[in-house]
């Protein structure tokens, strides 16, 4: 299992041809209290850099972009009832959606944990 990061503060956990995607702990700390998460539709096709989900704090709405191209396999319905999971467990229980990886070369430009830490330092 590999965890990768984007410059837009998303994380991707890669397991086989599936990528589980959420926003990072750093991102949630910048956003503040999350009150609503809009999820993509299961079965929809997302293109890299396309707006995929929306995370809303009291003050503002922030887009979550698809970091790679792929089909949405599953979304985290638990965030509907408990959006604050994004604050309490951003890189665990608050995963947002899972994509079937269409093109593994999409992963090549992404950062590993050490590089992401340096990016946010």
């Amino acid at each position, binding site marked *: 299992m590999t965890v990768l990061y984007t410059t837009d503060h998303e994380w991707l956990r890669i397991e086989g041809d599936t990528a589980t995607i959420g926003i990072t702990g750093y991102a949630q700390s*910048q956003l503040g209290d999350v009150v609503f998460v809009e999820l993509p539709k299961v079965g929809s096709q997302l293109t890299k850099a396309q707006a995929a989900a929306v995370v809303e704090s009291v*003050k503002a709405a922030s887009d979550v972009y698809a970091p790679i191209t792929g089909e949405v396999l599953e979304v985290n319905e638990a965030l509907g009832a408990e959006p604050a999971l994004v604050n309490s467990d951003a890189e665990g229980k608050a995963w947002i959606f899972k994509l079937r990886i269409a093109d593994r070369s999409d992963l090549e430009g992404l950062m590993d944990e050490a590089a992401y830490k340096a990016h946010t330092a």
Partner: protein
Amino acid sequence: MVTHVSDAPTLQKTPLHALHLARGGKMVAFAGYDMPVQYASGVLKEHLHTRAKAGLFDVSHMGQIALRPKSGDVTDAALALERLVPQDIVAVAPGRQRYAQFTNPAGGLLDDLMVANFGDHLFLVVNGACKAADEAHLREHLSDACAIEVLADRALVALQGPKAASVLAKKCPEAPAMKFMEAGPRQVGGVACFVSRSGYTGEDGYEISIPAAWVEDVVSALLDDPDVAPVGLGARDSLRLEAGLCLYGHDIDATTTPIEAALEWSVQKSRRNGGARAGGFPGANVILPQFEQGAARRRVGLRPEGRAPVREGAPLFADAASADPIGAVTSGGFGPSLNAPISMGYLPVSHAATGGLVFADVRGQRLPLRVCAMPFVPHNYKR
């Protein structure tokens, strides 16, 4: 993810800037100032703390102006100010304050403000983003009757919430006896301040004008009270939205009349047709007939039926399919005390009745909203 960083060197600082940084304020640009949007506990907790106990807000970016009558009679300053606002200022008794608006010739609003009668002069508090224009407006129109003094050496803080009176009593024993919209000079912790029982959260509370040199001492002493937490602009906005109060530049502006903005209550009968001093302010020919004939559109409260916040700028539609918007949301977000999204916006009067259903376009989807009465959360003023 898009995150916000603010370190623009041109931003002004309030006299409490160092205190905000020391207390973990997350700073953003607002009205030309570097201001705390929140502290470490976050918008949600700061909001709920204000409704449960007391929150302390730095609003020093707002303009404080003294209008001193050249005749020495404060009534002359009041009469002069009535040339620019549709409110009855003459009737504001010494030690009282009133909500007012500067109007333009089209009947729109240049700014909203508080006007207090301090006995020998009037004390005005205006919005930070408008203060330079307001000062110029006052100098242009009132210089014959008033000396206009911008009180740039004073900070302004708000102490808001059900514990505000008991907290402030420890530093200002007269504070609990003040009634809503009472205002005047008071000593706070031995410092000569101006205190008014007012605010912009819907809660009981005070606004305190403090000489800049002493503000850190006074505020630090108030923050030492376990009932008080510092609160940033984020919660200030969610609190005023729940209270149904207008934010200038968003819910009211140069294109909205007091009637369209549902602010009829703020225009006293003496300034309306048939009143002792009817008219005589910019746009009276537009505003006064609207009291009898109504306006075409009206500011309303909106409750989204789902969980998604419907924010400023979202167009409003009469139904789920129609192509042409009938209005727009002017403020919207999440109400922490209601644990639900809330919005306000303008609708044609044909659609403005409480209980009606309209639709907003949010990211390409039509979301239903119910027109509702405001405030969303009842006011808790000590009248």
